């Protein structure tokens, strides 16, 4: 009986086919109007920042709750915000994760770039639905939804709806109204730094403006099903890392019982100069 051997998916060859050269560090191309950079471990898709009139453009974090892996990143040198979508190549290299009955584009890399292009405007791709909840839960490691950092604990949750698939950790349930604008600005800096520093994960404030919650999330809404088995554990690891990295600072800054004159100094300086 003849058996068909499927050769492993070679993401480098697929990259060349998609127009990427083999650069020493990073090669670039364009896909449906987006700038795409390809390095040893990541595909980074870049889009223009939201227009200044958009309230989201004023926030150097988030935007939370939007489909896909798009997020605002502040470049270290230029200090300018831009939108990026980070895709780990490891998620594309597992041939078993790409079943034959797929409905997406034949090539995993192209399917993922299509996903980025479809979600850049915050829209879920037509016809996309979440895989069954049980299947997604099986990709989440035991205990993976709990992060402990010393005496601090944070629990994550799987957001599974027909048209939404994400993991979210709530770092602060409701920011105290006693937190001053100056201190909130410090908190915003921590969130923006975390979001710019680490890939895939969005972190920010959301909800009522006077008492927002602080959340970190990874959103796979619209992702080709073929990459999810590899992409979900990678996203969970990234999310756990960012939560553990930022939990102390966020908890400390949002604890109304803690006071520090230095936190208010910047605001006083601004008040005096205006």
């Amino acid at each position, binding site marked *: 009986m003849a058996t068909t051997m499927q050769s492993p998916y070679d993401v480098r060859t697929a990259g060349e086919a998609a127009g990427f050269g083999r650069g020493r560090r990073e090669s670039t191309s364009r896909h449906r109007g987006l700038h795409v950079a390809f390095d040893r471990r990541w595909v980074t898709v870049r889009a223009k920042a939201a227009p200044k009139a958009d309230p989201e453009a004023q926030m150097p974090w988030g935007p939370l709750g939007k489909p896909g892996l798009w997020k605002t990143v502040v470049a270290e040198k230029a200090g300018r915000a831009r939108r990026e979508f980070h895709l780990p190549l490891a998620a594309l290299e597992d041939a078993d994760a790409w079943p034959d009955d797929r409905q997406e584009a034949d090539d995993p890399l192209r399917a993922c770039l299509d996903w980025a292009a479809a979600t850049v405007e915050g829209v879920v791709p037509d016809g996309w639905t979440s895989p069954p*909840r049980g299947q997604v*839960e099986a990709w989440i490691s035991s*205990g993976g*939804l*709990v992060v*402990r950092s*010393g*005496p*601090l*604990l944070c*629990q*994550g*949750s*799987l*957001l*599974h*709806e027909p048209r*939404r698939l994400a993991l979210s950790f709530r770092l602060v*349930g409701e920011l105290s109204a006693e937190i001053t604008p100056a201190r909130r600005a410090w908190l915003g800096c921590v969130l923006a730094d975390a979001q710019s520093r680490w890939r895939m994960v969005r972190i920010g404030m959301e909800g009522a403006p006077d008492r927002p919650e602080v959340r970190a999330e990874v959103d796979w809404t619209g992702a080709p099903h073929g990459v999810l088995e590899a992409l979900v554990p990678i996203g969970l690891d990234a999310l756990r890392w960012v939560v553990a990295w930022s939990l102390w600072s966020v908890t400390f800054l949002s604890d109304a019982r803690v006071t520090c004159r230095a936190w208010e100094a910047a605001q006083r300086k601004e008040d005096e100069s205006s």
Partner: protein
Amino acid sequence: MSDRKGEAGVLRFEAADVTGTHRVQVDDVACGLPAGAVAMALASRMSLPENVPWGLRDDSNSALLDDDKPIGEQVNRATDVKLTVTPKTHLG
């Protein structure tokens, strides 16, 4: 309807170590957190050694809570919950 795995309210309790040296009031533990993770976090807060496996005992019935099960499912939330952080050791 959103399917949020692991979110089921907040638990308030008083916790102490076995010697009664450290006593803390906890107001905001998510009920869905595994009891084992809560025990380790409390041990850290009480500056107890981190290389010891800690568990939680419910003072109302002396039952040792299951590490892997949500803490909110293992205590009677209708009463004042008091827990003891206990090292999981045995003789012999």
